[in-house]
């Protein structure tokens, strides 16, 4: 088992309205096969043993599919490796003696709850504003009763990979939620079930995003770099197009 030691500079903030600060910790004897969150667990065990407050961070599945974890590691959302979430980042990506600066995702619309935990309910409210389809409830409809071209199904599935982790917001110079929102808009409007509400959807989701205090897109494409699911900025173009036609055609 190969182990490394690291210097951690972690953002500590006791509550939403408290003043935050950086605190330095030494992470010793970290297994290189451990995940980033397991490394934080080791540091926290030590803090608890010494009677200190552990570092608060959000996590759930720890297998890169739920979108709960996330922090900015040395200026990169979810850390230095492409297309992984923080829980799937392994300590072999770091060298012995490295300094790691750990910050929460920063955006006005994603207020810090504690340390590295941010409140992402603004993203939920964007989804609630239009990221759904209206169907009658009851028994499940017959499979394949609506023909969908393979190409469209593939595109919808590709866009639907978004896990709503907010790395796009964290990486955007304007703290914009355009990539996450565009993934949902494109996912639903690629499918016949999503078409009837597509005009209303894009307008009300964009409206909600502005209301929540996210910034706008300046085509820097940093979201695409940060996205653990590799969502393409082509969906932002799709959203722009849908928005233009919806706004021009609205009453």
């Amino acid at each position, binding site marked *: 088992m190969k182990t490394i030691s690291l210097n951690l500079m972690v953002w500590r903030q006791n509550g939403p309205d408290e003043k*935050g600060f*950086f605190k330095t910790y030494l992470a010793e004897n970290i297994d290189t096969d451990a995940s980033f969150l397991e490394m934080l667990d080791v540091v926290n065990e030590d803090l608890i043993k010494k009677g200190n407050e552990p570092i608060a961070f959000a996590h759930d599945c720890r297998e890169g599919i739920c979108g709960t974890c996330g922090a*900015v590691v*040395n*200026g*990169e*959302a979810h850390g230095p490796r492409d297309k992984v979430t923080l829980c799937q980042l392994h300590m072999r990506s770091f060298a012995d003696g490295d300094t790691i*600066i750990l*910050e929460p995702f*920063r*955006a*006005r*619309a994603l207020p810090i709850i504690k340390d590295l935990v941010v409140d992402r309910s603004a993203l939920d409210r964007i989804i609630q504003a239009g990221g759904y389809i209206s169907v009658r409830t009851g028994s499940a409809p017959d499979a394949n009763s609506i023909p969908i071209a393979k190409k469209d199904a593939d595109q919808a599935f590709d866009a639907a990979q978004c896990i709503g982790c907010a790395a796009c917001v*964290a*990486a955007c*110079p*304007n*703290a*914009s939620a355009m990539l996450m929102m565009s993934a949902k808009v494109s996912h639903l409007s690629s499918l016949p079930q999503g078409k009837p509400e597509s005009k209303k959807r894009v*307008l009300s989701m*964009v*409206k909600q*995003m*502005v209301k929540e*205090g*996210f*910034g*706008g*897109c*300046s*085509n*820097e*494409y*940093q979201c695409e*770099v*940060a996205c653990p699911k590799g969502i393409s*900025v*082509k969906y*932002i*173009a*799709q*959203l*722009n*197009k*849908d*928005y*233009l036609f919806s*706004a*021009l055609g*609205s*009453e």
Partner: protein
Amino acid sequence: MFSKLSLSLVGIKQLVALSGLAMVGFLIAHLLGNFLIFSGPVALNSYAHKLHSLGPILWIMRLGLLFMFLMHFSLVIYLVIVNKKAREHSYTVPIHKKTRSLFTQTMRYSGLLIFVYIFVHLFDFTFTPHTADNSVIDGVYYGLYGHVYNYFINPLRSVFYIVTMFAIGFHLIHGVQSVLHTFGFYHQVYTPIIQKISWGMGAFVAFGFSIIPVYVFLHHHLGWEIYVG
């Protein structure tokens, strides 16, 4: 319709893109006109004369351009304020510094320089008439041609001019491709080509305008004859 389009960030960005595109069109027409300097004073001056004789059409074009300029600038100011407000607390380590394009990052600075330069340019050429003081070369009055010629004999002005023209080039390298993305155009094959065209347009404008002071400098110092045709 308009209120919905203009109230949201996406709609505003589309208006910024539209006005930017209109100004790019103007810039290319302006550059092609400027190239007439290589054909001598008669060609350049008669082109300027024809433009001025358009009368009301010229004024409609000028007002349209002024409107586009004001729209572009004021909406960008608004967007910059909103975007700044969206992240109140900035990161300690700058985000993704490696993958951000230089041209994209410097948009607001290149834009600001262009903004200042437009006023300098209007003052120097549009509002300053061609006189015996500023438009005479070797004792002969050459109108606009002489005005431009004498202006660029001063190397300080020429350097400032060239720096500004490269700022415009930088602005276009991001701007042109950004316009298409903002209007929703994305294509696996065409988008990379558009990015190259964007580069080409930026370079064409930067080098195209910059070649004029260089030409005047060489013309003056190598003692070339003025082609009167």
